C-alpha cells in the first residue's frame, strides 16, 4: 500500500528517525530498560505521565540518529494483536528475564512473529537478557542466550536496568547496526538505481487525478 514508503525522509541537518519496538512478556523489564536508557532513571517519579513512547537522539561519531521507542503490552493475551505495532519498525528489542526460562521461550516466540511480518534483514533484532543483578536466581545462562542469538543471527547482550549495566551499550549497538545497514542500502540504491526506478510506484496516477 501507499503507506509503505511513507517513512519520514530525513532532511538536511535532521537526524534519521528509526522506529524501535520493545517486545517481551510481562514484567521482564521492557519499560525499565527504555526508561533507564532515555532518562537514566529507574522507576522514580517522573515529570512525564506515560512511559510507553519515548524518543531519544543518539550521537554516533559524526552522525546522529533519533530513536523512537514503542513499548508494547507483553501479556500473553495481547500477543495476537501485537503485530500491529510492527508496521514500519526498523529495529526490535526482544527482552527476556534471565531468572525466567519461560520469558526466554516467549522471546523466541516473538521472534517467530517478527519473521512472519518482515523479510529477513529488514529489521535489526537484538536479544536482551535483563536483570543480571538477580544472577543468583538465574535460569537462563549467558551461553544459552548467546547461542540462540547466534543461531538466528541476532545481536545479543545481557543487561541490568536496575544497575544501569550495559543499557546504553545495547541501544548504541542497535544504532550502529542500523546506520551500517542504511549505508549499505544507499550503496545498493546507487548501484541498482535503474532497477529501483521501475518500482518507484504509480506516478501516472497522481498526475491523472491532479488534472
Amino acid at each position, binding site marked *: 500500500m*501507499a*503507506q509503505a514508503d*511513507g*517513512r*519520514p525522509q530525513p*532532511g538536511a541537518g*535532521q537526524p534519521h*528517525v528509526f*522506529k524501535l519496538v*520493545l517486545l517481551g512478556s*510481562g*514484567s521482564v523489564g*521492557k*519499560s525499565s530498560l527504555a*526508561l533507564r536508557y532515555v532518562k537514566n532513571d529507574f*522507576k522514580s*517519579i*517522573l515529570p*512525564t*505521565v*506515560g*512511559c*510507553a*513512547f519515548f524518543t531519544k537522539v543518539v550521537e554516533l561519531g559524526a552522525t546522529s540518529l533519533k530513536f*523512537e521507542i*514503542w*513499548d*508494547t*503490552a*507483553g*501479556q500473553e*493475551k*495481547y500477543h*495476537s*494483536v*501485537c503485530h*500491529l*505495532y510492527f*508496521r*514500519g519498525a526498523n529495529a526490535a528489542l526482544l527482552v527476556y528475564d534471565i531468572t525466567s526460562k519461560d520469558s526466554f521461550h516467549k522471546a523466541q516466540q516473538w521472534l517467530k512473529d517478527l519473521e512472519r511480518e518482515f523479510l529477513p534483514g529488514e529489521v535489526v533484532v537484538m536479544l536482551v537478557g535483563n536483570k543480571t543483578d538477580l544472577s543468583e536466581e538465574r535460569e537462563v545462562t549467558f551461553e544459552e542466550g548467546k547461542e540462540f542469538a547466534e543461531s538466528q543471527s541476532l545481536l545479543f547482550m545481557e543487561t541490568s536496568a536496575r544497575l544501569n549495566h550495559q543499557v546504553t551499550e545495547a541501544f548504541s549497538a542497535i544504532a550502529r547496526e542500523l546506520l551500517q545497514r542504511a549505508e549499505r542500502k544507499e550503496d545498493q540504491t546507487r548501484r541498482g538505481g535503474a532497477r529501483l526506478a*521501475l*518500482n*518507484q*510506484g*504509480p*506516478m*501516472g*496516477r*497522481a498526475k*491523472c*487525478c*491532479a*488534472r
Partner: protein
Amino acid sequence: HFLVCYLINRKKMSLKSERRGIHVDQSELLCKKGCGYYGNPAWQGFCSKCWREEYHKARQKQIQEDWELAERLQREEEEAFASSQTSQGAQSLTFSKFEEKKTNEKTRKVTTVKKFFSASSRVGSKKAEIQEAKAPSPSINRQTSIETDRVSKEFIEFLKTFHKTGQEIYKQTKMFLEAMHYKRNLSTTWDSSCVQNNYKNLTKKKKKRKRMPPERVEKIMDQIEKYIMTRLYKYVFCPETTDDEKKDLAVQKRIRALHWVTPQMLCVPVNEEIPEVSDMVVKAITDIIEMDSKRVPRDKLACITKCSKHIFNAIKITKDEPASADDFLPTLIYIVLKGNPPRLQSNIQYITRFCNPSRLMSGEDGYYFTNLCCAVTFIEKLDAQSLNLSQEDFDRYMSGQTSPRKQESENWSPDACLGVKQMYKNLDLLSQLNERQERIMNEAKKLEKDLIDWTDGIAKKVQDIVEKCPLEIKPPNQSLAAIDSENVENDKLPPPLQPQVYAG
C-alpha cells in the same frame, strides 16, 4: 463520453504500471469477468468497472436494510446517550452529522442509480452531479458549509504568507479537489491512493523548488491536508462503496454485548474509587467519543492522543508510578468498551486511508493510533481466556443470563455516580421484594391447600360419622298432653296419694 473513457483508461494503465513492481503471475491479475482489463484483489479480482457493476447490484438491495438497521440502532444509541449526562452535547452533534450523512447518501444513491441505468448519457448526469455538489441544498449542509468556508478562509490566509508559492499550492489543491469531485463515485481505495499521491507529489515539489526546511514543508502539508479533507469529508468518510458501516455496526454490537466486562477482568490498573481517577476516565471517554465529530484526520488523531494522555494520568494517580505499555493497553481497551465511540471502525479506516502516512507509522500520534487499532482488534477477538473466565461463565455473561456486576453489587465502589448507586440499591431491593413475593405466593398456595384439605377432612369425618350412626326416623310421638289418654291401664292404678296433715 470521450473524457470518461480516457480517465478509465488512464486508471487501468496506472494500475498496470503499479503491478509491474511486484512480481505476481500475470494471469492472476486479469479481471475475473474476462473483460481483458486487470483486476484488483481489493475488488475481489474484478477490474474496477466490472467490480462496480457487480457490487452495485448486490449493494442496492442491501443498502435499504442496512439503513433501517442503522437508523434503529442510532435511535437506541441516542436514547442511551440522552440518559448519560456526560456526553449530551457531543451526541447531538454526532446525531445531526449522521442524519446529514444519511440524507447525503440518499441523494447520492439516486444519482448513482440514474447513472447506472443511463450509461449513454453519462457525461450529462455527471455534470448534473457536479452542479449538485457545488450547490448543496442549504438546509442539509448549512453546518457543513460554514465549517468548510471557515477552513477555506484559513487556508487562503495561511497561503498568503507564502506569496507566489502559496498561489501555486492553492491552484494545485483546487484542481485536485475538482478532479476528486468529478470522480467521486470511484472506489475508496482509489480515492485514498489519490490523496496519498497528492501528498507525496506536493511534498516532493516543495522540497525541490524551494529547499524549504522540512518543518515548514510539514506545516504546509498539514494545512493542505486540513483543507482537502474538510472539503472531501462527506464523500469519503464511511463511503457506501465499502462495508465500513456494516463493520461499525458489528463493532458497536460487540461492545454492547460486552457491557459486563469489569476492570478487574481486564487487569486494568485504574482505581475508579479515587475521584481524580474517575474524572480522568470520564475525560478520556469524552475525548474518544469526540473523535467522531472531527473531520480532519489529524484532528481525529489529536483526540486519540488526548484520550491516551488522560489514561496515563489515571494510571499514574492510581499506581503512583509512570504507566508502561503493559498498563496502558488494557486501560485503553476498557475505555473503548466503556465509551463505545460512535462509528469507530469508519474513523479508523478513514484515518488510515487519508492521513499523511508518516504520521501513522511513527511519532507519538502514530503510537497511540496503533494502540487504538490493537484495542479494537482485541475487542473483536476477545474470548473467555483473555478475561480469565471459564467458558461457561463467559457464555452466560454474553447471552445476558447473568451479570457479574449484579453479583458484586455489595462491593460496588462507593464513589460511583449517585444515580448508578441508587440504581444498584433499587435493583437489590427489587430482588429482595421478588424473593418475598415468591415466599408469600408459596405460603398462600400452601394455605389454600390446607384450607381445602381441612374442608375435605371435615366432610370426610362427617361422612364417617353419618355412616357409623345412620339416621333413624322414628314415627312421630304423640303430643305430650295425650300421653296419658292412651294409657289404658292408668285406671288400674291406685288413686294419687292425698296429702295428710299430721299434727306434730
